[in-house]
């Protein structure tokens, strides 16, 4: 009886894949790179910032007031407020300039500028961080080798972020690296200024995305009305594969938001990257277009290439280099694939066009840009998160690391919780949402709660070896 029972014990879990196997996968695919970015920033901060906080960075964020340790608390507070106000003003002006440029169709200029920004971040900021590391660990390396490696690193990075022909893991890694570098530089700002800036940016994000005159919202609406894409730096999670589901069935079950038509280049046959049930549950419909004919060579006329309209959930995501460059760099393209059925759904709300680019070999599509800032959905239903969000989350956690590791763990959990809440709101409201406010609010709250309340409690208990 026992061996029989044992054999049958195995059955339920291995036979049919249950709900637990696939639910929540896209969330994890966004939470993982955010966690990696935060973790690496914390490591970098704890290695490089041991002791000397005398190194001050002069940038836009300290333009109004330079904090010194001898000032009183009230002065520091006022100074921090002024600094963050100045910063938000600069960001707003830059976003409006971007909207203006986009309105006058200077996309070529924008793209070149974005590429230049990525190169500056990877080459110069990255170079400085590497030099700090070399100094700290006393690695023997000569400057020619270093320069060669750095140049290669930067150029490959720019190419990875702009060209779609690289493996997705390379693009994702470079985006995370850009996030880490910018976040590390931001942690070098004085303490009060950093906290004030985080709160100010969260409020700005809320306003810019949700208010009707907000620049990010204007940008999105311009893009929709014109059917173009905005250049921006966005991290896209790899779309979720659904096995053992017939693509047609899968597609029929999907809830589509809005789409036009997806054209496929001739030899396009991507994998059926379909977001199905999970997306349905969370309301993230995969957005793809299906052509009813099953021939893969159907060529839809209309612009070579593609458009699927995506729900543009714009979030904050403008990432700013410390030298005030707006790194609204061109993002990576969609790794989305087509499917083969056809659906038209009524247009819902705002949408943004996205060029779909297939990963198949002979694609002659022009380079794609996804625009999307903040949290949104790609046409495959994969979640996209703007790089600015990565950066500000990591700045928060890095600043917490400068105090103690207990605050790091608390802030990490708070930020992930905020991200989860934002994703759920995204699924619920299905429109552009800012990703910063909830997470930053929770993060700041938990930081101060931990620092003021929890630390004393835990240290007191631990020192006496009392635990529960």
């Amino acid at each position: 009886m026992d061996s029989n029972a044992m054999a049958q014990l195995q059955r339920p879990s291995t036979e049919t894949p249950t709900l637990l196997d696939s639910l929540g996968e896209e969330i994890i695919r966004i939470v993982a790179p955010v966690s990696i970015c935060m973790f690496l920033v914390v490591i970098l901060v704890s290695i490089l910032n041991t002791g000397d906080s005398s190194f001050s960075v002069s940038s836009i964020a300290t333009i109004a007031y330079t904090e010194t340790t001898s000032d009183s608390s009230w002065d520091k507070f006022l100074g921090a407020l002024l600094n963050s106000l100045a910063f938000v003003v600069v960001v707003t002006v830059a976003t409006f300039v971007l909207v203006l440029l986009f309105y006058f169709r200077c996309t070529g200029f924008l793209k070149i500028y974005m590429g230049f920004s990525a190169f500056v971040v990877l080459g110069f900021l990255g170079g400085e961080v590497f030099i700090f590391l070399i100094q700290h660990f006393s690695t023997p390396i000569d400057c020619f080798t270093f320069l060669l490696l750095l140049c290669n690193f930067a150029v490959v990075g720019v190419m990875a972020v702009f060209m779609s022909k690289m493996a997705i893991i390379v693009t994702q890694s470079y985006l995370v690296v850009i996030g880490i570098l910018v976040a590390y530089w931001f942690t070098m700002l004085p303490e009060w200024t950093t906290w004030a800036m985080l709160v100010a940016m969260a409020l700005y994000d809320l306003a810019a995305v949700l208010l009707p005159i907000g620049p990010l919202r204007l940008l999105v609406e311009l893009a929709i009305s014109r059917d173009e894409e905005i250049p921006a730096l966005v991290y896209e999670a790899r779309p979720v594969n659904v096995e053992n589901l017939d693509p047609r069935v899968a597609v029929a079950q999907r809830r589509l938001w809005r789409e036009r038509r997806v054209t496929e280049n001739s030899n396009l046959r991507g994998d059926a990257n379909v977001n199905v049930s999970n997306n349905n549950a969370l309301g993230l419909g995969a957005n793809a277009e299906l052509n009813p004919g099953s021939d893969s060579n159907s060529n839809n006329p209309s612009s070579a290439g593609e458009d699927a309209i995506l729900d543009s959930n714009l979030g904050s995501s403008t990432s700013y280099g410390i030298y005030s460059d707006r790194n609204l760099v061109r993002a990576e393209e969609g790794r989305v694939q087509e499917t083969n059925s056809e659906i038209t759904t009524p247009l819902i709300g705002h949408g943004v066009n996205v060029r779909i680019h297939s990963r198949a070999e002979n694609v002659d599509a022009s380079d794609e840009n996804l625009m999307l800032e903040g949290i949104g959905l790609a046409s495959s239903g994969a979640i996209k998160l703007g790089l600015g969000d990565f950066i500000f989350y990591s700045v928060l956690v890095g600043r917490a690391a400068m105090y103690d590791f207990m605050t790091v763990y608390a802030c990490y959990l708070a930020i992930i919780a905020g991200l989860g809440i934002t994703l759920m709101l995204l699924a619920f409201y299905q429109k552009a949402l800012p990703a910063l406010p909830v997470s930053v609010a929770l993060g700041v709250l938990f930081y101060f709660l931990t620092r003021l309340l929890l630390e004393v409690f835990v240290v007191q208990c631990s020192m006496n070896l009392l635990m529960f």
Partner: protein
Amino acid sequence: MTVAAGIGYALIALGPSLSIFVSVISKKPFLILTVLSSTLLWLMSLIALSGIWRGFLPLKTTSWWPYAILILSSIAFQEVLRLLFWKIYKRLEDTLDAFADRVAKPHLFLTDKMLIALAGGLGHGVAHAVFFCISVLTPAFGPATYFVDQCSKVPFFLLSALIALAFVTIHTFSMVIAFNGYAEGNKVDEYFVPIVHVVAGVLTLINLAPGGCTVGIPLLYIVAILTLFHCGRMVWRRLLTENRISLNHS
């Protein structure tokens, strides 16, 4: 005592939970989310407790009963929270089953429910280890070590790592027992968990006495092993009866 020692202490406290995480939990994304949310819940309960007790800390007494009150109140709070967790989980289970119907997948199996309970317990255990042990471990990465008066033969970090390991085990598996008890209505299981938690917490009071840790820590491990065995026996019995039922029906 250098990075190697620091990592060693961290692995003593978190090693088994890391292996559970990698082998069981990382395969299913929903379980990772469960671990994260239960960790967050435990953290919030800890912050609430520290908020309540902040006015009285730091306790400068040498007698043991303020600490006893501290521990008992905290454990009571956390057990109430466990009940709350169970209620939330019940509602979630219904939602998940309804959703499974919509996408034509089977309802949650018993093993799935136990996995969710395990993930919840692991979240609690990891939160305990992280906040009580790992966050005070930072000095251990430096060149020196630290000893406490009450237990002066063993480095403090090693002691806290060992205690954390015992508590991780207790938290992880008592969640499985508790969820099972609530589901089945089994009174023994339902009361087993809070009693074990209280006993474990009270056992750490022994550490206040000089030289007490030589007695306290092994007793704590006995409690942890007891929890482990009880959980294993309960799971085994449950799965066998479930299987027998399904065999009879098929």
